[in-house]
């Protein structure tokens, strides 16, 4: 088991190294080939100290990386946690009641919500907050200095909600689809003929057999969710890694771009690694 876990870790590290390489090539191509800049990624002068526009307190790049990652993690956790919770519970329910097309009905509200531009939604929340609650609505307007910082969780939830809607509908349909394909296999008909009850066939056989497949689709929305945070954080003026990427791109700060892009890639990479480990625990062969 330890060998399998270390093997997946090595694969994950190699992929992350590949992502770093891709980002280096991308920045070089984008800025030097398309943008005509003379600052190449391999030149030391291209990376300076942290510009004051990117931080409110004196900090180095490593500090900024951890600050922004710490702000983004709760948002990503809320969004992705919500997707898994809703996607799996409602997806299983949808597959169980497939004759009523329940998966489609359950995913419809999320699909409809995903049609609303997420950045517009967070701006609307800010407008509503201003007019109805008489307080500034954007994330950088108020800072809690004493007591539990519940406001930070409110801000995280506002950003996580549209990001979650994007993935939840997809996850419900995918989970339901995996189970429906499993239930359509010939052995299920055999179990029916042998006198097993519907419930026993679904939960005791089909679901149990589909567990590895269900785990394998658990991380499919992670990359898009993390990507959507870039625009949502910037729109809500939330000081996370996504907003840092946009600010760094506008300031042409290579170090800022790498710090933010790598922290976003790290979140996806860790998610994929956890999925791989759980899959290996469930199905070692």
């Amino acid at each position, binding site marked *: 088991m330890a060998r399998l876990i270390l093997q997946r870790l090595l694969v994950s590290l190699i*992929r*992350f190294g*590949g*992502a770093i390489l*891709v*980002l280096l090539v*991308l*920045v070089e191509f*984008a*800025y030097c080939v*398309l*943008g005509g*800049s003379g600052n190449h990624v391999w030149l030391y002068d291209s990376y300076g100290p942290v510009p004051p526009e990117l931080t409110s307190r004196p900090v180095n790049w490593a500090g900024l990386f951890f600050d922004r990652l710490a702000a983004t993690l709760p948002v990503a956790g809320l969004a992705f946690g919500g997707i898994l919770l809703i996607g799996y519970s409602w997806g299983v329910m949808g597959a169980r009641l497939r004759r009523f097309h329940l998966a489609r009905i359950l995913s419809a509200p999320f*699909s*409809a919500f*995903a*049609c*609303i*531009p*997420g*950045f*517009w939604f967070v*701006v*609307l929340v*800010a*407008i509503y907050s*201003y*007019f109805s609650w008489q307080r500034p609505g954007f994330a950088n307007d108020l800072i809690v200095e004493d007591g539990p910082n519940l406001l930070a969780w409110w801000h995280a939830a506002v950003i996580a909600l549209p990001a979650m809607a*994007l*993935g939840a509908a*997809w996850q419900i*349909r*995918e989970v339901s*689809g995996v189970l429906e394909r499993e239930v359509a296999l010939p052995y299920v008909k055999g179990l029916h003929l042998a006198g097993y009850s519907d419930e026993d066939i679904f939960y005791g056989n089909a679901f149990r057999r589909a567990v590895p497949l269900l785990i394998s689709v658990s991380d*499919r*929305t992670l*990359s*898009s969710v*993390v*990507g*959507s945070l*870039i*625009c949502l954080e*910037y*729109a809500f003026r939330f000081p996370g890694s996504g907003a840092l*990427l*946009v600010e760094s*791109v*506008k300031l*042409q700060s290579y170090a800022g*771009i790498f710090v933010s*892009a790598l922290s*976003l*890639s790290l979140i*996806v*990479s860790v998610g*994929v690694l956890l999925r791989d480990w759980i899959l290996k625990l469930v199905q070692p062969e």
Partner: protein
Amino acid sequence: MANRRNSKVVSSSTRALVRAWQVRRALFLVVPYFFLLLWLFTGGVHMDVRPGELYEVPSEPAWEKPNAEHWFGTTGEGADLFDLSRHAMATSVAVAVVSVALGIGLALLFTALYVFDPGKKRFQLLYMMSRGGYIVPSMVVLVILAGASGGSLGVAIFGLILVIAFHLSPVLANWFQEGESGFDVTAGYVLGLSRREIVLHRVFPKVLRRLPGVFASLVPPVVLIEMALSFLGLTGDRLSCGAMIAYGQAMIIEAPWMAISPGIMASGVVLILSLLGWRVSAALQIGPLPRIF
């Protein structure tokens, strides 16, 4: 005895009619698409409208709240926001249509490089690249490309094409593999057809039949992404609902409809496109697509 065999023209037109009947549900959906695009692209707004100039507030603003005459309200200069939003959405939809069409074409071209190889692991490199590339979110690539070029729409479209092709290639590869496992393909091999003939005449048509569904499913998310990029100010000073919302934020207190109205139009159009895309993909049975954005 007279030769009763049909002429080539008759047989090919019969085949075309049969195929059209098979995809009649998808063809029927062309009508609402036509009306939606007609409505979007027939407006009285000039193409050189700049949101920066449009959202400038004069010393004595002439804006109006949403009312019976101006459903979405007006700008500080008195321009109707409904017409402007419609024009902005037309641009976004046009960008999405071009990007998705070229992205699908590039993905098909890229996959076709491997299709004629008879080896069982021919798509291995494609799958490996896809798994590795998954950890860099597509939006990161688009923001870097569009931002570095100084807000060029052409570069944004180029980025969208690359991202779509990259994520779609493994899906097409799967479909090619599925297509090769059919009974007709086995029969073709038994009858002595060459691999090239089988791929071109048996497998390719099966994949091509699904592509309109892929196109219809991908257009709505790409419209949203285009708006997101323009909201971030990365596609230049060009009229788009994203840019209108971004400029409207500055007037949240005085004229909140300047930020609210374009979003309503955008949500409505994307919702209609999504519903149509869902019906087209269901009619063509394309199955689940990966989440690209």
